[in-house]
C-alpha cells in the first residue's frame, strides 16, 4: 500500500534553531574540525527535530570547510620529529632537535605534527555566510535529493523552460522519456519520466546523485510537479513536490556544452568537411513522446540527406529497446544513438538491429560517418 511521504521540509518555524546552530558552528572557526564534529554530536540547547537537524548539519559542514594552515608541510615535520625521537632521549629533546632543523618553535612543531589530518584541519567560514532561511532551503534540497536516491520512478510535469530542464537531464545522462501532457496542453509543457536509482543495476550511486542534481533546476520552470515512487526501508512511499515548495534554487541554468559534445563537434567538423553539424535541432514528436536530439547532421551538397544524432547517457538495453520501438512506430529511422560503454546500467545485450554507435570517452566521427553511410534514408 502506498504511503505518502511528507518530506518534513524546513520552514520559517525552523529559523530560530537554525540560527542557534549556525552561531554554534561559527564559534569553531579557526579551531580543528574534530572539535566541531564533537560539538555537533551533542544536542543543541533547544528542541530540534532530529531529521531536520541532520540535514542542516550536513549542509553546514559543506559550507564551513576545513583547511590546512601550516607554514611547513606536516609530513616534513613528522619526518623530522620522529627521526629525532628514534635516537633516544626525552620527548622534549627530540622536539628541540626537530625544531632546530625546521627553524620553528617547539610548540609550533608540536602543533603542526598532525595539522593535515582531516580532523585537525581548521574550520573556516564561507566567503558569504547564508541566512538561516537560506540554509533551510539548502537543507530541504538535500532532503529531497536524499529521498530521490530511493526512487524507483520519477515523473516531473513541467510548464515553461522545458528545453533547459531536458538539457540538464541529458547532460547528466539520465534515463529519461519526454512526453506531451495527457490533457492535451501540448504547447504548454511536457512530462519527464525518469528511471530512479532503484531500477538500475550498476552505477546506482552516480545515477542517484545525477538525478538529485536535477531538482535544483525545477524552481526555474514556470510551474512543476514532481512525483516520485520511492522505496524507503523496504516500504513503498511517494514523494510529492511542486512549484512554491521551499527548495533552494541553483543559479539559472546557463547554456553550456558538455565536453563530450564540444569535442565531437570539433572532431566531426575536421573529419567530415562535406557535412554540416547543427547543434540542438528542433525537438521531434514521436507519437506521444518528444525526442530532443543533440545534433542534426546534413550533407552540404545533398541537403535531403539529413540525420539526427542523440548522445545517450546512462542506458540499459530495455531503455534503448523501448526507445527504438517508438522510433520505428513513428517511422523515424534517421536517428543515430550514441551510447557510452561506461554508462551501461545492465548486462543485457544491445538490440542487434539498431543504429547504435558505441563509444568510450569520445565519439569517433569516422564510426558515425560509417553509420551514416549504412543508412540510405533521405529525409
Amino acid at each position, binding site marked *: 500500500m502506498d504511503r505518502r511521504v511528507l518530506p518534513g521540509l524546513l520552514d520559517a518555524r525552523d529559523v530560530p534553531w537554525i540560527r542557534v546552530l549556525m552561531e554554534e558552528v561559527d564559534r569553531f572557526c579557526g579551531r580543528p574540525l574534530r572539535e566541531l564534529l564533537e560539538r555537533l554530536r551533542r544536542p543543541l540547547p533547544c528542541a530540534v527535530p532530529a531529521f531536520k537537524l541532520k540535514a542542516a548539519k550536513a549542509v553546514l559542514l559543506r559550507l564551513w570547510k576545513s583547511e590546512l594552515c601550516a607554514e611547513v608541510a606536516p*609530513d616534513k615535520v613528522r619526518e623530522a*620529529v620522529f627521526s*629525532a625521537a628514534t635516537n633516544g632521549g626525552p620527548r622534549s629533546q627530540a622536539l628541540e632537535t626537530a625544531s632546530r632543523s625546521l627553524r620553528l618553535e617547539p610548540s609550533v612543531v608540536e602543533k603542526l605534527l*598532525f595539522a593535515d589530518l582531516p580532523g585537525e584541519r581548521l574550520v573556516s567560514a564561507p566567503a558569504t555566510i547564508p541566512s538561516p532561511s537560506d540554509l533551510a532551503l539548502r537543507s530541504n534540497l538535500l532532503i529531497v535529493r536524499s529521498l530521490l536516491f530511493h526512487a524507483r520512478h520519477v515523473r516531473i510535469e513541467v510548464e515553461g523552460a522545458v528545453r533547459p530542464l531536458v538539457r540538464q537531464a541529458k547532460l547528466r545522462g539520465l534515463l529519461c522519456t519526454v512526453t506531451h501532457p495527457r490533457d492535451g496542453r501540448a504547447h504548454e509543457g511536457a512530462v519527464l519520466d525518469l528511471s530512479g536509482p532503484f531500477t538500475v543495476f550498476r552505477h546506482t550511486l552516480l545515477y542517484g546523485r545525477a538525478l538529485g542534481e536535477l531538482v535544483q533546476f525545477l524552481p526555474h520552470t514556470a510551474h512543476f510537479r514532481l512525483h516520485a515512487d520511492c522505496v524507503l526501508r523496504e516500504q513503498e512511499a511517494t514523494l510529492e513536490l511542486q512549484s512554491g515548495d521551499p527548495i533552494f534554487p541553483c543559479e539559472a541554468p546557463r547554456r553550456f556544452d558538455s565536453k563530450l559534445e564540444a569535442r565531437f563537434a570539433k572532431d566531426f567538423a575536421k573529419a567530415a568537411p562535406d557535412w554540416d553539424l547543427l547543434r540542438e535541432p528542433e525537438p521531434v514528436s514521436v507519437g506521444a513522446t518528444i525526442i530532443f536530439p543533440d545534433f542534426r547532421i546534413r550533407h552540404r551538397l545533398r541537403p535531403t540527406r539529413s540525420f539526427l544524432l542523440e548522445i545517450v547517457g546512462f542506458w540499459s538495453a530495455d531503455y534503448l529497446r523501448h526507445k527504438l520501438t517508438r522510433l520505428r512506430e513513428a517511422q523515424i529511422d534517421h536517428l543515430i544513438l550514441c551510447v557510452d560503454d561506461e554508462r551501461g546500467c545492465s548486462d543485457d545485450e544491445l538490440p542487434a538491429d539498431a543504429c547504435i554507435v558505441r563509444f568510450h570517452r569520445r565519439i569517433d566521427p569516422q564510426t558515425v560517418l560509417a553509420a551514416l553511410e549504412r543508412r540510405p534514408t533521405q529525409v
Partner: protein
Amino acid sequence: MVATLLDRHRASRTIVFTADNPTAYAISRAHLIMPLTCDIKRKERERVLSLFREGTLRALVSAQVLNEGLDVPEAEVGIIVASSRGEREHVQRVGRVLRPRPGKHALVYELVVRATTEVGQSRKRRSALAA
C-alpha cells in the same frame, strides 16, 4: 606500560597496534612514534616503511593499516594495545612480527586490563593462535 615497553626495546624495531586511529595518534603524540593510519597518504606511508626497514625509524604505531597486506620482516617487537579484535586479525598482527629473517628473535606483548573480559578474550585468541 607502553612507555616502559618502548623504552625497554628502544634498540629494536617495534610496532604498536591500536584499535582505532585516535588511540594511535594519542600514542604517537605522547611517545613520538610515527603513526601509520588511513589518514596518512600512501606516498608518505611508503616512505615511512622504507625508513623503518633501513632503521632510521625504529617504532611505528598503527590502527589497521599494518594488519594486512604489508610485509615488514624487520619488525622484532609487537605491542598490541587493543585486544578487542577477532582471532583472524590477531593472527595477522602477530604475523607482522613473526615474519622470518635470519637470526631474528621476535617478541609480542598483548596489553590487557586485569579483571576485565579482555583477559578471557586474549586467552581465547592465544589458544587459536597456538592451534
